[in-house]
């Protein structure tokens, strides 16, 4: 990593408003070709930190260097050639076309009347292509969906042609496919353009997937940074988002609703094909408060056990007179003296509910 250019360097940086320090002191470095996700619960100061790093508001203390120069010494036009932004501010102009908006990205380079040269037009075209918005050049902003207009805003930032790019919660208000698409786009851009990109976001699972590094702001000014996987394994990640009744499961990388410890059930998957079915079975049992013990090896004593077997689904389904089922799987529930088989999870849950009325919804 040492041969990469350091784009942003902050030391003992404190951010906030007038006399209230929201976060810091914190030390961060941002290298080229890295996608960094800035995470943190609401009110932890994500936006304030991002705005400060972007030069929209002055730091309350500490040192901030952008591309080797002290940030406070950079004039607005100089800064505009180093950092481009995608903000949460709505752009509500009814007459602006997608292309006109992207063209505004050339503002720091254009003449005093805003006239664009050949080189500018090339950059604009490239930016629209890279963000995947070439097809709606002449469309008015109001006719675009939230996902589309966010990509146009990204294209505008790309047209600004800066080594650093910062995005403040770009996935808010987007539907799930658009969120994934946007994060994927950023991930590719970092690889292709060697830009350093900082994204503040609430998309924890997406961030864990695409980020090269995570900056984690915690309540009361705590700060951690590192590779996403390291933060998960050291427990820092789960701790930062800990809330009453919610638990971060390091084995699956997802958040779970905490349940009271219910009846213990052993879950056995027969062979690799049953792994997915076992995973979803565990989730279903977890929802109803069962404590699932996995695998045969465990020495723990359990009265009940559920075995997921691939391939046997067809027979049982025919036997039970059912057609609907979850693939060709068979769920077998055993406890001393009894063994019952089911073609799907719904059937299993139904039967178990009759034996454990306390665990199941009425």
């Amino acid at each position, binding site marked *: 990593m040492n041969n990469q250019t350091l784009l942003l360097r902050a030391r003992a940086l404190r951010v906030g408003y007038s006399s209230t320090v929201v976060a810091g002191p914190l030390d961060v470095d941002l290298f080229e070709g890295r996608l960094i996700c800035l995470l943190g619960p609401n009110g932890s100061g994500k936006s304030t930190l991002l705005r400060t790093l*972007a*030069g*929209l508001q002055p730091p309350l203390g500490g040192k901030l260097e952008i591309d080797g120069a002290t940030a406070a010494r950079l004039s*607005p*036009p*100089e*800064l*505009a*050639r180093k*950092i*481009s*932004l995608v*903000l949460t*501010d*709505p*752009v*509500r*102009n*009814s*007459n*602006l*076309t997608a292309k*006109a*908006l992207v063209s*505004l*990205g050339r*503002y*720091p380079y*254009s003449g*005093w*009347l*805003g006239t664009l040269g050949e080189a500018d037009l090339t950059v604009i075209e490239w930016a629209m292509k890279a963000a995947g918005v070439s097809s709606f050049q002449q469309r008015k902003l*109001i006719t675009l969906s939230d996902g589309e207009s966010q990509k146009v805003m990204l294209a505008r930032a790309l047209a*600004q042609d800066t080594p650093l790019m910062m995005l403040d919660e770009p996935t808010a208000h987007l539907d799930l496919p658009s969120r994934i698409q946007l994060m994927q786009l950023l991930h590719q851009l970092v690889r292709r353009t060697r830009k350093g990109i900082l994204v503040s976001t609430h998309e924890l699972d997406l961030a864990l997937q695409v980020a090269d590094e995570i900056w984690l702001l915690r309540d009361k000014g705590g700060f951690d940074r590192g590779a996403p996987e390291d933060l998960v394994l050291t427990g820092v990640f789960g701790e930062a988002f800990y809330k009453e009744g919610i638990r971060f499961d390091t084995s699956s990388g997802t958040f779970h609703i905490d349940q009271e410890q219910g009846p213990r059930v052993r879950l056995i998957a027969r062979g690799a094909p049953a792994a997915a079915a076992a995973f979803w079975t565990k989730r279903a049992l977890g929802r109803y408060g069962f404590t699932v013990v996995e695998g045969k090896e465990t020495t723990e004593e359990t009265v009940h056990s559920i075995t997921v077997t691939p391939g046997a689904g067809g027979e049982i389904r025919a036997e039970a007179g059912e057609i609907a089922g979850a693939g060709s799987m068979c769920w077998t529930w055993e406890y001393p003296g009894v063994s019952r088989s089911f073609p799907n999870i719904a059937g299993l849950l139904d039967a178990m509910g009759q034996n454990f009325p306390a665990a199941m919804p009425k």
Partner: protein
Amino acid sequence: MRPGRQTFRLAALLLLLLLIFLLDVATGSARIPFKDVCRVLLSMRIDNSTWQYIMVNIRIPKAITAVLAGCGLSVSGLQMQTLFRNPLAGPDVLGITAGASLGVAAVMLAGGSIVTMYTIKELGIAGSWLVIAAACLGAACILMLVVAIAGRIKDNVVMLIVGVMIGTITLSLISIWQYFSSSDLVKDYLLWTFGSLGGVSGSQLLVFTLAVFAGLLISFFSSKMLDALLLGENYARSMGLSARRARIIIICSTSLLAGSITAFCGPIGFIGIAVPHLARSLFNTSSHRILIPGCCLIGTLLMLLCDMIAQWPGSQNVLPINIITALIGAPVVIGVILRRNYRRVYS
């Protein structure tokens, strides 16, 4: 829209404008043959000295005043709509003309019995500058107040109401002043508030032209800034715009335009708010490089039309210009509010 079509529309408007200008100076309570009108415009002498006088001292100055007022009010309205990112902004609705009125009232009413609008006009250049300076100062004060308040209000209609309130407060201040002034002064002031394009001539016209041209020039040179401000202040700053400097420049230009026009023509309403919308829909663009000349042309055209309606050919009476601009402009404002995509776009 392609640049070619925009240029074509600008040229077509310019041609239409020349035609309307000609019509405007050709019509009035006195019947002057069209041939003689043209001769005067081409600065050739005509035999009838009364017609010559009417043309040179009344009709042509009035038409030029209409051109200047139309340009200035529309462009100041456009700048305010961009600065506040509010389609309902305009010099009259946000109380800027009221501020200019306060400045004018200060000169007229505080001057005591000697200084009336008439005597100010008689003072020539010095007096003209005095009124302009007072009006621009009044406009700038209110504009800065509105800018300060606008930072705290996100809703456009609420901002409109606040602007109207500020205007009302300003006008109340003037009313208090009027109450304690002599009836002659009050009458003089009231006549001025009806708005009139006539009565600006000679050296005043020169001062007026200079002030409006300065305002327009500043505004045209700031068209790049205005484009950036379309995205809001934070984005504009991230693109290298110094927000404070931009705001000062726009405030200067707007106060100069709205102030000087109000000083000479009275508080003319609705042109400033309506014309930018017409320009946007006609040129189908958001680029101020096109919109500013577009506003100038449409504003001028509308102002000349209003003037022609006000002095309906054959009629001996001249209606106050404010009545006509309100009749034409207010429906445009209602249209903007009612527009189907209004909620989605602006709220």
